[in-house]
């Protein structure tokens, strides 16, 4: 994920956590609670991967999780899970578009 540095510089990206599908914490930018986020989002991503396998949808690329005020974007690259915390939530499509165009395999 060489484009990571440019993505985390987006003003709407308030923090980023890199983990893997087993929930192991690897790195974080502007995020104090990286270990907890990596664990939870690793599990969420694993469950989505499993549902995708059950439904024959192929490989999970990313998942956009949206709430009232804030959102999160999970980006999967092999076994790595990058969680981007996005605020405000309405900025999510723009961040997703940026990810789509700058990370290989996300388009």
């Amino acid at each position, binding site marked *: 994920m060489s484009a990571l540095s440019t993505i985390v510089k987006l003003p709407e990206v308030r923090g980023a956590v890199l983990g893997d599908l087993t929930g192991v914490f690897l790195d974080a930018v502007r995020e104090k609670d990286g270990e907890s986020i990596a664990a*939870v989002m690793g599990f969420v991503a*694993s469950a989505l991967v499993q549902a*995708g396998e059950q*439904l*024959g*949808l192929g*490989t*999970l690329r990313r998942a*956009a999780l949206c709430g009232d005020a804030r959102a999160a974007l999970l980006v999967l690259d092999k076994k790595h899970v990058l969680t981007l915390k996005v605020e405000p939530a309405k900025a999510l499509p723009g961040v997703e578009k940026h990810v789509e165009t700058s990370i290989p395999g996300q388009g």
Partner: protein
Amino acid sequence: MDSILQGLLDLSGVNAALVVDGSGHLAAFLGKAVYDRALCEQAGATLLKAVDSLQLQQEDWETVAAQFTDGKLLLRSLGASGGTTRFLVVVADATLNPSFATVALRVAANKLKKAFEGGGVAAASPVASQSGFGTPYPAPAAAPRSGPSESAAVANTGVSWSKMGSSVTLTGITVNDPASATFLSRCTKELARAVGPMSKVYVQEAIRRLSPEATYTMALRAKLVEDLAAQIEDGTDRDQFLRAAEKL
């Protein structure tokens, strides 16, 4: 309830629409071809785990849009009513128009919330909704709640493919890796375009013919496709299946 889900199913690219309650049961569902109740219930239970975990980080979640290589999963919270939470799930292929889907999902969610809040639906028990393309199924028992890591172990240790959520009628087929399971799911889906919901049975029988131990590995891929193609009577459908199978 079915008319609301049918509205979603009418969208181009949508293959199934389901409502999952807080205990992992289907409150309602409609699905095309291989997306039968058993498969949807198992996927629903898996998605409930994702939602339950997600709430640890984001209690106010409204939507989840998961992008896969071959399709999309869209989830929308229906809030809580009658003592249980629910969420709506749409399973779609890559042809789904995301803008239309967002609007349709919002409309459907509003109608479903009203239906649940208004008591139009018995909130305490699973609704006897069924596939719009087959015989009604009885409400099944709770689906197993194994974790994702357990699923990976299942795929690696050769437990029945049917237990990974594909069918109640397809039993005893063993796969040794996730790639084989994914291929079988996709292959069954493609075959269903020609033969309908019986595709699972055809796949099961074909594997048993090719492997006496009823174990599927990717080494059997070509033979399996050839065997299945031979069972499609219509030449055009057969060619279409073979073309699609090449790309799987």
